């Protein structure tokens, strides 16, 4: 589904990613771990199409199609979703209106009629239940005044609404207490299917107790220094990231 080949990315002429290779197939869950500043969020931004990202080498293929030069909205319509580490507050835009606009733009892209008001309402209530979101939140402005947990829940809610083929969840667990994390993880697990895939970017192993990944990759100084099965996460939890520094130096 997603194939990243020798990806080099710089931001403001500073090279952040220095040759990433990654292969994600339908039905898989990949975890990308690594210390702060290793380039995890930059990788997420590169896949989602943020304009400050400059791909200097390599390519990102999504279902065989090169994403370079494609607008973020086009990527989204083709089935990509980015769950933000810091969801943006948008005063004045209600979550309902936002989701309805997003769904209709995606439907338009697929040549479908706009969703009717009653269909939309039914669909939304279903998804709200799935992620355990409080009813009132939908009528409020997007993320405005939401608590940290509510913001992250809202990301999963949007993912549920948009039903992407590939979801990238950037530090979805940061700042969450155990209860909120269980709800978020529960949402992700319920949405898992053989047709879609998920990339979980996280600093901590904790979330992976609830969402069991098929693969774990360790990103360090812009490169994937180790890839393995889920047991790697446990090893990281035990040893921390310090051992990487030696390994990293060797690779460099």
């Amino acid at each position, binding site marked *: 589904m997603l194939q990243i080949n020798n990806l080099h990315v710089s931001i403001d002429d500073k090279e952040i990613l220095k040759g990433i290779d990654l292969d994600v197939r339908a039905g898989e869950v990949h975890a990308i771990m690594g210390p702060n500043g290793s380039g995890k969020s930059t990788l997420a931004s590169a896949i989602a199409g943020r*304009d400050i990202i400059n791909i200097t080498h390599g390519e990102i293929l999504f279902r065989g199609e090169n994403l370079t030069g494609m*607008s973020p909205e086009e990527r989204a319509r083709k089935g*990509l979703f980015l769950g933000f580490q810091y969801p943006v507050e*948008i005063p004045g835009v209600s979550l309902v209106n936002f989701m309805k*606009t997003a769904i209709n*733009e995606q439907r338009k892209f697929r040549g479908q009629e706009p969703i009717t008001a009653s269909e939309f309402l039914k669909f939304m209530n279903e998804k709200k239940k799935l992620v355990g979101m409080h009813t009132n939140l939908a009528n409020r402005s997007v993320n405005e005044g939401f608590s940290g947990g509510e913001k992250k829940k809202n990301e999963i809610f*949007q993912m549920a609404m948009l039903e992407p083929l590939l979801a990238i969840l950037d530090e979805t667990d940061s700042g969450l207490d155990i209860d909120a994390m269980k709800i978020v993880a529960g949402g992700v697990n319920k949405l898992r299917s053989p047709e879609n895939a998920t990339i979980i970017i996280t600093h901590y192993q904790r979330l992976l107790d609830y969402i069991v990944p098929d693969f774990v990759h360790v990103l360090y100084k812009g490169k994937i220094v180790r890839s393995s099965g889920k047991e790697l996460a446990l090893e990281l939890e035990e040893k921390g990231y310090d051992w990487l520094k030696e390994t990293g130096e060797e690779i460099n």
Partner: protein
Amino acid sequence: MDQSVPQTDLKQEILTLFERNAGELESLSGGPLNRFRPAAYDDFNRLGIPTAKNEAYKYTPIENYLRGEYDIEFKANPFRINLKEIFRCDIPELDTDVVLTLNGFYYPTDQTPALPEGIIICSLNEASVRYPDIFSEHYSKYADTSADGLIAMNTLFAQDGVFIYLPPGKEFTRPLQVINLSHSLNNLRITRRNLIIASRDSRANIVFCDHTLCNQGYLTNSLTEVVLGENAHVDLARIQNENNLSSHIDNLFVHQLRNSDFKSHTITLHAGMSRNNFFVSLNEPGANCNLNGLFLCDQKQHVANFVLMNHKSPHCTSNQLFKGILDEESTGTFNGKIHVWKDAQKTQAYQRNNNILLSTTARMNSKPHLEIYADDVKCSHGATTGQIDNDALFYLRTRGISEKEAKHLLMYAFANEIVSEIFVDVLKTRIIHLVEKRLRRELMRCNYGCR
């Protein structure tokens, strides 16, 4: 403007225009209107047109807009207005009582609103003759001609407009919509004068809509005095949608007594130059005033909002919120002052101005301003001018929303803070529609008038 061309004396031209026509003008106007002309003449002669040296007009080169060839009418234009026709042209047709003015003159229709007993809505000139006592008690009492040349100029030429009187305890059954229309074969100078008297415990919802029916330049000098008696409530919305050849100076004077409540919503969508001046005087304890404004401008439009909020008495509250979206080479000004007098303790007065610039050539000058002589008050002021939030834009786009639609959503959300405060739901819906169309640039590019 080319400085090498010798400028004619605009003030003298205007004085001469008055002198030549004073006979006709005064013979067509009621005595209480004429009574103020000599003082207005002297004041205008002394003050002239405000220049850039006048702080209030520093960023609005008003004289440039007042120059040019304009006709003037001293009596009502015989043009017949087809109501059905004008509603086709983006003028909100609402469930309201409607009165019209044409080129500044009250335009009688056969659809006179059925009003609760005692409420008067009529021509200003007619009111000066039929109700001289009420009229003279308030006319020109709040708009001080000695303070500003443009106020003096309005009073000098004032002949007609809308007169509204609510007796104690009365209220409109439906909102009142005043549609100000301009129609002529040549460029036209228009003077309009309104007087709104809301007696004790009365309530009124009023909306003014300004429209041009022809592709001519209109130079309008409009002045409205509003007086609110004890516990009176007035909510005044104004939609500016004249063509971009037109310049519009609007002066609003609000005089408030104990526990009265005044709210205004000034929505500026079009016109080449719009100058909105607000002078509010909170004279007795418990009065509240909210001034909201939204302006959307592009091309070479200029929009200026000027506020003087006078807190003269303790325990009064006021809130100003003005927001603007400026594109292309448009320019805007916000100049707002809260003046808290020495005895006005426990004042709460707030002021905010937020602007979005969509182009690198648009320009906004903002001057929030406090002047406080009391020592126990809560006041704040602030202004921001920036671009559309890029993080928000990216966030929306990652959900599949196109850049254009995402920008629209953000601009609309920005504007909605003003629009959502509008009192009547039908009007709110209609204004939302007009603002949406304006943001999408579907509303007529008004260079060619309304048709």
